[in-house]
């Protein structure tokens, strides 16, 4: 077999190869190298070891950012999974207006995070928003001051995010439910298993690949969250809803503290790898190894 049998294919894939190497791999190496320097406004190679990381872990703001990303990641992922799964199950019950409901539950997913953030910012506005509505209806005790409350603001972000993302999980789950063999349902009903029990104990485990895919995709998106928080709370009140992504961008473009930003971005990268590695290993390595193409 001649070495260059697929020369045309190689040329065609050249852009992909170049981009993968320079952008995806190159940028990480670049970021890592300069995270070991004390670059401020411009990147200069002035090696200082892991001082930037040490400094990073001492920042109160970084602690808050990490804590927030855990809260957000947990509430958002669980919220999306539960609501998405419930909606998929309900829509699968031969209900009337199925496609209408599906459309309603999925449309937020077509909107941008910027729009999502701004809409919820208005809905949750402490003066004119829903709190005011409830007061006008005579529920004077009702409080919904989440956006100006340091402890609750991050949950406002979670609500907006779940509103946007639950439909996505619903679509994945629904695809899974529709793929379940009719015979399984028949045998379950012959056995007399209650419907909710069958869903939780039989069907849900069968949807495991869907659930895993959904979790991985959501989790990978969690680390990136930026637009939503920027528009909804701008990281505030104070820096109560800041996240690693905001921290990085702030140090890059506002505070001109490049070394610190690089260090924080490398930590972000490592955490994504930790989430993805086990799944990618299973998905791409084990499965390709034992499956034929």
């Amino acid at each position, binding site marked *: 077999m001649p070495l260059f049998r697929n020369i*045309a*294919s190689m040329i065609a894939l050249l852009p992909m190869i170049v981009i993968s190497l320079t952008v995806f791999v190159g940028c990480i190496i*670049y970021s890592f190298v300069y995270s070991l320097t004390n670059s401020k406004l411009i990147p200069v190679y002035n090696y200082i070891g892991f001082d930037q990381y040490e400094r990073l872990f001492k920042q109160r703001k970084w602690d808050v950012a990490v804590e927030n990303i855990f809260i957000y990641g947990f509430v958002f992922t669980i919220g999306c999974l539960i609501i998405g799964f419930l909606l998929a199950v309900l829509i699968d019950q031969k209900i009337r207006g199925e496609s209408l409901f599906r459309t309603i539950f999925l449309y937020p997913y077509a909107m*941008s995070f*910027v729009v999502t953030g*701004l809409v919820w910012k208005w*809905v949750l506005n402490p003066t004119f928003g829903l709190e005011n509505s409830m007061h006008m209806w005579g529920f004077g005790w009702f409080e919904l001051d989440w956006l100006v409350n340091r402890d609750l603001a991050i949950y406002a972000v979670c609500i907006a995010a779940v509103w946007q993302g639950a439909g996505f999980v619903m679509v994945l789950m629904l695809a899974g439910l529709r793929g379940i063999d009719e015979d399984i349902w028949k045998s379950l009903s012959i056995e007399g298993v209650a419907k909710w029990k069958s869903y939780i104990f039989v069907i849900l485990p069968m949807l495991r690949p869907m659930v895993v895919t959904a979790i991985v995709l959501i989790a990978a998106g969690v*680390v990136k969250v930026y*637009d939503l928080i920027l528009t909804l709370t701008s990281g505030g009140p104070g820096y109560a809803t800041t996240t690693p992504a905001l921290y990085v961008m702030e140090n890059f473009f506002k505070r001109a503290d490049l070394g610190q930003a690089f260090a924080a*971005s490398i930590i972000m990268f490592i955490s994504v790898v930790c989430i993805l590695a086990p799944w990618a290993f299973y998905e791409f390595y084990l499965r390709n190894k034992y499956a034929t193409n």
Partner: protein
Amino acid sequence: MSTTPAGPRPKFLTIGRIGMYCFILVCAIFFLMPLYVMVITSLKDMDEIRAANILNLPKELSFYSWPKAWSQACTGFVCEGLKPGFINSIKITVPSVIVSVGLSAINGYALAFWRFKGAYFFFGLCMFGAFIPYQVMVYPLLKIEDALGIYSTLPGIILVHTIFGMPILTLIFRNFYVSLPIDLFKAARIDGGNFIKIFLYVIIPMSAPITIVAVILQVTGIWNDFLLGLVFAGRDNQPMTVQLNNIVQVDYGVAEYNVDMSATILTSLVPLFVYFISGRWFVRGIAAGAIKG
């Protein structure tokens, strides 16, 4: 995947089914409420917004905010409304979609039919790029574009969208092409087709469905992008999402919530239009992007 559950619709309403419908309705209200608030707020004047319940229908329809949001609202010192952003978003989205879909189709084709040694290594590298947080790559990529002299220009942002769209699109195209009957390709080879001819005359004519899915995915994705537009587009090419955020967040003087909401609706019109028109295709895009083949 069939679109409707099998079996007849249950005839009698049981307590359980009534409860189910109630739950679905509550969910539908939750999902629709922000859209409803957005629309009615944009149709009220500021006096009414200040005085009345956010959920009440407008007493008098006011169309004041729409033209203002479109062509007069201020972003900092410039008061041209969202119109320039709309034009910029089109100028960014159209070429980005064409370039990224075209390139990824060729990638997928080469990977599916013309595998050479190492091709899948680079494909894996490229897929890995889909999960790297943007924050890790933004600054080094900015430096690369700066060196190429295209930072803050239209070609610069188009290149960025092409790069970040490539992994998922290449995957979608590859999966689609792998699912085509290989005999077709073999027959074309025997007839003397080469890399380019087979692509042009055999593959492209069969690629319509997957191309629609890819285009929908990219149009909504690029239109909704905020971060990349903010960093790479430059002051003259700011996309609509960035201008929307500027209009809403940088409010000198009195905040005009009706104008904000009109601007928000205007920004989400394109993706919503795509979503409502394409419905099923949009769902297929999600499934194609999420479920690995």
